[in-house]
């Protein structure tokens, strides 16, 4: 197939047209809108960097941003520890390992919106009644404070994502040669030593993959945020994605919301590029 061939272009047209209409044109217009005072209707004027300047004085946006950063760090650590733990468990020759895999992965099939609603019930009603039962006052009202709302979001995300990250770790764990582990065992290495000196170095690349995967995922979270806390109390558990959507479609500040979206794009792009870079570097080493 050469560039001149009609077939080449016919094969590409449907996806190329969709990509241009859905991603490329909106992206270019988005950059342009972020320098205007567009409100979705009527005329728009070019106002230069005003939106971007306002953004750095916007406490709601800055606190949503900071909340997202803290949330991402806590979830990444938790998801990776649990994910690796689950992967080690289900690859350890248990009879139940297929069943366990199926169970741990299950939350990933269900949408974030639904999962958030289920956990809303758990944090409000179930935690409340366990608190009453055991006389632990602090289990009441889990989603009504900023701190416990934060941990609510982290717990939900860890429960959902750990099974996904587990799958990635399993793929790398299965590539660890079994005879190497056996030889080490015969030489007298205990389980911890075998993990530390053989398994761990060989699954290290999985860390880079899942670290950045969880990072870009937790940065973009919206559905879970909306259905679990809805940003309450007083927007203090609002993350960046939700802040952008609210200012665009509730407050109708289209151009201003778009300038936040541009900043968001730059950050997510940097994270993703770093991921590609580190993965490539690993490949060279191996």
């Amino acid at each position, binding site marked *: 197939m050469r560039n001149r061939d009609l077939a080449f272009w016919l094969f590409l047209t449907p996806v190329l047209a969709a990509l241009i209409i859905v991603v490329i044109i909106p992206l270019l217009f988005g950059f342009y809108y972020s320098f205007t005072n567009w409100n979705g209707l009527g005329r728009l004027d070019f106002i230069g960097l005003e939106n971007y300047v306002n953004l750095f004085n916007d406490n709601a946006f800055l606190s949503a941003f900071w909340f997202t950063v803290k949330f991402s760090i806590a979830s990444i650590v938790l998801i990776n520890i649990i994910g690796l733990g689950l992967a080690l468990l289900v690859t350890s020759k248990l009879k139940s390992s297929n069943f366990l895999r199926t169970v741990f992965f299950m939350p990933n099939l269900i949408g974030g919106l639904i999962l958030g609603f289920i956990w809303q019930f758990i944090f409000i009603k179930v935690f409340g009644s366990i608190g009453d039962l055991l006389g632990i006052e602090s289990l009441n009202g889990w989603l009504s404070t900023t701190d416990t709302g934060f941990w609510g979001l982290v717990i939900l995300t860890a429960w959902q994502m750990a099974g996904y990250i587990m799958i990635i770790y399993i793929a790398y764990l299965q590539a660890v040669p079994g005879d190497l582990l056996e030889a080490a065992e015969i030489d007298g290495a205990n389980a911890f030593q075998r993990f530390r000196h053989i398994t761990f170095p060989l699954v290290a690349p999985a860390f880079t993959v899942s670290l950045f995967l969880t990072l870009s995922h937790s940065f973009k979270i919206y559905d879970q945020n909306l259905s679990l806390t809805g940003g309450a109390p007083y927007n203090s558990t609002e993350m960046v994605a939700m802040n952008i959507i609210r200012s665009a479609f509730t407050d109708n500040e289209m151009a201003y919301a*778009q300038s936040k979206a541009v900043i968001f794009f730059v950050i997510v792009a940097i994270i993703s590029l770093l991921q590609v870079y580190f993965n490539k570097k690993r490949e060279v080493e191996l």
Partner: protein
Amino acid sequence: MERKKWQLRILGLIGILLALLWLSPFYLMIVNAFKSKRDIFADTLGLPQEFTSDNFIQAFEQLDFLRTLLNSLVISGLSVGIIIVFSAMAAYALSRNKSKLSSVIFFIFVAAMLIPFQSVMIPLISQFGQFGMLNRAGLIIMYLGFGCSLSIFLYHGTLKGIPQSLDEAAKIDGANRFQVFWYIIFPLLKPMSITVGILNVIWIWNDYLLPSLVLGEAGTETIPLKLFYFFGQYTKQWHLALAGLTLSIIPVIVAYFFAQKQIIKGISDGAVK
């Protein structure tokens, strides 16, 4: 040897306990969906005093469940179908064309994966609105645009392993480009098509944000969208809310039950690439 057996038994026990912990949110959702409002208040953790199906009947009607389910099936089915066919076609063209232009086009598709939805969302919705495309057809085009990048990337990897001599042999037998693709190449891509299908269906089936911005017309709602309205209506009435949640999860659990091997394989193929 004896010691090793014990270690495995303990690990097995830990596994079962963790599995129960993992499943507990689903348990709590289901048992409470069968309780009356008063029962949930009295005892949240235990089994219902008496099982009531009233919650489900009311949730079924309020969610207009059959229609909502059909909407979700139609939108996910059509979107994933066209993503599979069109992405495979594009990946085929790109992998069989060794020019600079085709590497640039491939790079653009891959680079588009880096773009978060929120950064194109506002102009996208505004432009589709101006052309009167905020409807199901518009939604399916959007899913093609957002879903094709990863799909092309995955197909491209597989196509590199399919020898070009196969195309040439079919061509000598008198097949044109479309026939070569449709009768020779596309069937060979079947394992990858299953992976691509699974990855896209999970995302599209569960998507809430895009339908919430695009589907304005009553009666066209997908499950997540309808559930959002339903939940808002019954915020303080957990017995109904939970019955609605349980209903909407059933199709996914049924699908998982029948295709768990392919689903987990699809995810791991897609995730590690």
